[in-house]
């Protein structure tokens, strides 16, 4: 009796990437919403972002129907995992719980092979997407009020979240890059992220 919910987990680093991590969830959710999906987008409750470098999780859940189990603490089975800093591959089992055939999107200047060398359970992946998001978008302000339920002040999708979600649109059929461009503030970066992303099928 279990509902089909498409789970996304985004990993970001504390203080400097907290806002971009949250903006990535909002870009995906808003774009999917334009496409008629039912959406949830929120920050992990226990991963407090006010510590520089701490790994943080942000979540998106998308479904064709209204989501029934709305109140969850983590996404246990993410189909799409996005990491905003490539060194995160060494620190955590980021593919934990991924069903067979999922996708990984990485913000990196390195090649997919270099990243995959650090992932022992890479056989879960159908593909990996590498995009140099930090090269495509400038650093943005620090604002972690959103992780405590506050409202975003800065325009959503101005920094690295834009090219990363653009790149994710290449492997996720729940939202289109056109809709991401519509909802993002840095529309160029979304398109460039989509265009320059290297997708390697596994």
């Amino acid at each position: 009796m279990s509902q089909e919910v498409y789970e996304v987990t985004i990993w970001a680093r504390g203080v400097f990437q907290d806002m971009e991590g949250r903006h990535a969830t909002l870009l995906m959710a808003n774009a999917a919403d334009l496409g008629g999906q039912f959406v949830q987008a929120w920050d992990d409750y226990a991963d407090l972002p006010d510590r520089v470098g701490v790994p943080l999780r942000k979540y998106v859940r998308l479904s064709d129907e209204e989501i029934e189990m709305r109140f969850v603490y983590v996404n246990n089975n993410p189909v799409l995992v996005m990491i905003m800093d490539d060194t995160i591959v060494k620190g955590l089992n980021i593919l934990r719980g991924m069903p067979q055939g999922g996708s990984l999107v990485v913000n990196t200047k390195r090649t997919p092979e270099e990243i995959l060398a650090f992932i022992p359970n890479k056989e879960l992946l159908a593909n990996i997407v590498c995009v140099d998001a930090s090269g495509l978008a400038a650093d943005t302000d620090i604002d972690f009020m959103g992780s405590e339920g506050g409202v975003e002040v800065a325009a959503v999708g101005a920094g690295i979240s834009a090219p990363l979600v653009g790149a994710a649109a290449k492997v996720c059929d729940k939202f289109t890059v056109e809709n991401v461009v519509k909802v993002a503030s840095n529309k160029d970066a979304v398109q460039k992220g989509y265009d320059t992303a290297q997708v390697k099928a596994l």
Partner: protein
Amino acid sequence: MSRFIIPKHLEVPLGACLPAPVKEQPGMITGNWRTERPVIDHEACTTCLNCFIFCPDACWHLDEKTEQMVWNADYCKGCMICVNECPANCLSTVNELEFPDGVVRLEKPF
């Protein structure tokens, strides 16, 4: 006699009181907070112990036998205070992905 059955995975210590960590806290590994790590040139190092003194996470210590500084990959957060404070300039900052070792790989953040 209470009617309750406590499943194994829900057994917790009485009053939620735990033994306190003494030398390290393996329940709070922080090595995965860093994006880069300090790399030491042992030849240039004078064992002045500045890195040991200044490290906020006690990640440098002097190995008495080898007389060399030893770095703790499990807890170093990559703050680079040691690099900043080293008077011999024997510490440099290198991106973490340059090293196949030092993988923390936690199942969950904590």
